[in-house]
């Protein structure tokens, strides 16, 4: 044991003197998740959609559309500016808005007559997701107007003269009563469909439960939460790869040969390298977890977290050992590891949430340790899973880790002996 610790201490000291690869691997998930969160979450608040509206319609529906973007539900998302068509085009050309909505002339009249009408939305592609929000909202609004037109077609026909003339033109009292009665009948007829609605949409996260708790950070931290586990697990593989590569680095340096010419067996040497890899991976988890905890500030089951982490450490060490055990040289190992980890990142849900991937890829994902690590952390972070809730993930990781470590260490043992005999 003393010898093992002596070897690990030497490797840690070397790593401390040349920490670039370790720091780069660790920075990757934090920067990646942070940048995604900043790009799409603004560090806690979405930036407002700067919407230009040119309302060429004289009627009330056009005004209603404009008002919809300033309603209490949407006011936090939109910064609406009324413009003329020319002003709108000019501002868009200068990139001064996220999107430009044009409500055409005669929009109200055509809608009431049942003629096709078009709301025109021009999006600014440099604004990322923001124009898409405007498009989605406008699309929803169009659907809403269409539904209302169909249900309230009769009373709206009565209202048409007033609507076309604008809201300043008020109907007579008798007309108001008649229209109100007709509208009540129409809504009553449709009430069995809309009160309560027959179709409800319940949106929930994959796994069947709602998030464990609200974050203080808002949207930004939510996005950080979505991205971090996958890229953090991916980065852990990079850390392990860098550590295990040291077997072949030492072979090149001649220090492996020199050590094995001393009172050290190849087996002890390889076990020490695996131990060193585990220590580095554990340190990496600690750092990323600290950052994650600082940003997310959500309670997580500590025993569950420790179990998944330790199982993952075993799995990443095993994967790296297997890769470098089977690789003939340092360069071949690095190339092989890069390709395998990248494939795992995509297939195992490291870069994209597994739910968003095509079914074919989803069926492959469980064959990668990255998938089980990512899902384990997501269960802890998103669903508040406890120790028993992550036992399945940890179990698979441990099984994969033991198998890969066995194969890898046997191959590295052979490689170490061959390297010293050369």
């Amino acid at each position, binding site marked *: 044991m003393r010898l093992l610790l002596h070897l690990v201490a*030497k490797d840690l000291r070397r790593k401390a003197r040349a920490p670039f690869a370790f720091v780069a691997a660790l920075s990757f998930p934090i920067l990646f998740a942070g940048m995604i969160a900043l790009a799409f979450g603004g560090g806690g608040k979405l930036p407002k959609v700067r919407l230009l509206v040119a309302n060429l319609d004289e009627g009330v529906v056009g005004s209603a559309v404009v008002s919809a973007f300033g309603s209490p539900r949407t006011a936090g998302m939109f910064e609406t500016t009324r413009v003329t068509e020319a002003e709108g085009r000019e501002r868009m050309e200068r990139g001064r808005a996220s999107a430009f909505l044009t409500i055409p002339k005669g929009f109200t009249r055509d809608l009431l007559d049942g003629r096709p009408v078009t709301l025109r939305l021009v999006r600014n592609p440099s604004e990322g997701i923001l124009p898409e929000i405007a498009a989605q909202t406008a699309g929803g609004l169009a659907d809403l107007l269409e539904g209302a037109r169909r249900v309230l077609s009769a009373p709206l026909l009565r209202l048409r003269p007033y609507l076309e003339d604008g809201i300043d033109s008020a109907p007579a009292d008798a007309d108001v009563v008649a229209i109100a009665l007709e509208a009540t009948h129409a809504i009553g007829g449709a009430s069995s469909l809309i009160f309560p609605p027959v179709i409800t949409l319940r949106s929930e996260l994959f796994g069947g439960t709602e998030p464990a708790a609200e974050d203080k950070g808002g949207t930004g931290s939510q996005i950080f939460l979505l991205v971090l586990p996958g890229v953090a697990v991916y980065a852990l593989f990079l850390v392990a790869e860098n550590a295990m590569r040291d077997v072949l680095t030492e072979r090149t340096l001649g220090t492996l040969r020199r050590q*094995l*010419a*001393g*009172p050290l067996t190849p087996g002890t040497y390889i076990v020490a390298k695996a131990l060193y890899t585990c220590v580095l991976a554990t340190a990496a988890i600690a750092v990323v977890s600290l950052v994650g905890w600082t940003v997310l500030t959500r309670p997580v089951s500590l025993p569950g977290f420790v179990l998944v982490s330790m199982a993952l450490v075993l799995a990443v060490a095993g994967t790296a050992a297997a890769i470098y055990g089977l690789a003939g040289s340092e360069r071949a190992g690095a190339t092989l590891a890069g390709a395998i980890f990248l494939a795992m990142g995509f297939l195992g849900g490291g870069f994209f949430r597994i739910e968003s991937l095509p079914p074919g890829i989803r069926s492959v994902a469980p064959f990668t340790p990255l998938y089980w690590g990512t899902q384990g952390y997501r269960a802890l972070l998103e669903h508040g899973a406890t120790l028993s809730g992550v036992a399945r993930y940890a179990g698979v990781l441990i099984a994969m880790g033991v198998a890969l470590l066995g194969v890898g260490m046997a191959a590295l043992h052979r490689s170490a002996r061959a390297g010293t005999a050369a």
Partner: protein
Amino acid sequence: MFDVRGLVKSYGPVRAVDGVSFAVARGELFGLLGPNGAGKTTIMSMLSGLLPPDEGRILFDGIDLASKPLAVKAALGIVPQDPALYETLTARENLNFWGGLYGLSGSALRSSVDRVLELIGLADRARDPVKTYSGGMKRRLNLALGLVHAPRAVLMDEPTVGIDPQGRLNVLDAVRRVAASGTTVIYTTHYLDEAETLCDRIAIMDHGKILAEGTLEELKRRVGGRDVITVRGAPDLSPLLPRIDAMPGVTVASAEAGKLVVAVDGSGRGAVELLSAVLSSGLAIDGISIQPPSLSTLFLNLTGRELRD
């Protein structure tokens, strides 16, 4: 201390070591001299337990290396041909690691590290990262790493290859001091002068075999008083060869563009005949040198060719 019997090692069809046997006494500085590819490093790999021989056995203080490798390895120090160092660590950290690997710790480790740092003259640079060292300093540290645990025997595999003259002198001086302290040293080299000035006994190797073995004086006696005459001159000295071949007691060792090496009996007659032939040939001659009997002449006699650096 070392008793090596009938070592054989082949790489495919190539017999790198072919039935090598020798013995090294305690405190002796034993040299393996031979050109590159003679099999010296393969023998060192087998002596250090890194490479199992195909045939033969190695006894160290009566212990069979094959049966108790760790026990033997713990008593040996290794100085590989190329420096095997951790460049991001300091010299002291390197020495601490290698000393610890052999079981040293605490004050024993500290004093041992201080001792070898003094020996190689790097005490004042001990806290600098090795990557800031010159090539010569790295060679000296490479030597120190093999000595830090005060081994009973040290295997040094061409420790002065690729080193500047001053660094070479420093390393050779350190090797002498190690040997003077009573440590057994097996030293491989292809430099004749190193073997001549350092070693108590020398084994001359070529093509995986030991051709001759003994002290320097014993080996010189084996030369039998043959001088080596080197003629330098015209690009093509081949017109001389038929006449030289016909001379009794004269052997052409090598003939190449502008250079002819010939071994002649030490009686003087052969040399005179050769010089007459050369001078009367009409070829342009730049210079003629005569070397007295030495390891170089012995190697020439044994192999029919020169031992080159």
